[in-house]
């Protein structure tokens, strides 16, 4: 069973992501509504996958991504964003994100990407 941690400031999006994790028969390792405690939680929970929203108040996804990869260069972080800006996508991949999911997303798309990233 794949353990997945999620961080998104939207309650609605977190609800959908949790349902996707359930449908995929994965395990929800933990959920965060901001990026502030992401590194601490990641260190504690050690999830197989971290679904990380880009635009969060206080600390954005890019800052969290840098912290996580700095701590664990093999971390499997999947960014989620409404931005289709190619420079942003490239920057995330350059910093170590394994994939980039664009909102609005489809359940199957998210599950497929989780599977691909875990296998990679």
């Amino acid at each position, binding site marked *: 069973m794949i353990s997945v941690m999620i961080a998104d400031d939207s*309650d*609605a999006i977190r609800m959908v992501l949790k*349902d996707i994790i359930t449908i995929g028969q994965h395990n929800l390792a933990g959920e965060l509504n901001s990026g502030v405690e992401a590194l601490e939680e990641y260190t504690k929970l050690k999830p197989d996958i971290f679904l990380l929203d880009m*635009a969060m108040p206080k600390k954005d996804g890019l800052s969290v991504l840098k912290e996580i990869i700095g701590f664990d260069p093999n971390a499997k972080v999947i960014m989620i*964003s*409404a931005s289709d800006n190619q420079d942003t996508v490239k920057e995330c991949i350059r910093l170590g994100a394994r994939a980039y999911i664009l909102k*609005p997303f489809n*359940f199957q798309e998210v599950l497929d990407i989780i599977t691909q990233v875990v296998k990679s």
Partner: protein
Amino acid sequence: MTTHQPVPHGYNLARHDEFLEMARKEIQSEIDILKEALFSCTNDEQFYKKSREIEKHMHKIKGLAPMMMQEKVGEIAQISDRILKHVINHGVLKGSRDIISDAVQRMSYLFNRDSNIGINDFRKQAMDVYPKIA
């Protein structure tokens, strides 16, 4: 990267309703914050100073609205987001305060009153005023 219909076949209807209710509250909250922020801007210079803050709220609507089948609200937010990013990166843009205020009013109307009204005139207005941005 591809976009698909967000709600899958067989998705629990009760959960779907719960999602819609939650998403509606979040979008309404963002629209209210945007209205307040824009109310305090009387010109493009003031709008530029607040553009980063405004963009964060617009960006959230852009991601969430299409997931609750509010595609028109999502498209207005998407066009507005492009204009806002241009303002953030390039500075004061003539007419930007007015067009974003108009966008927020339209989103509010679509969201709360009539989701059937068209947005072609907004698309055209944005394209006419900012052909290289919108």
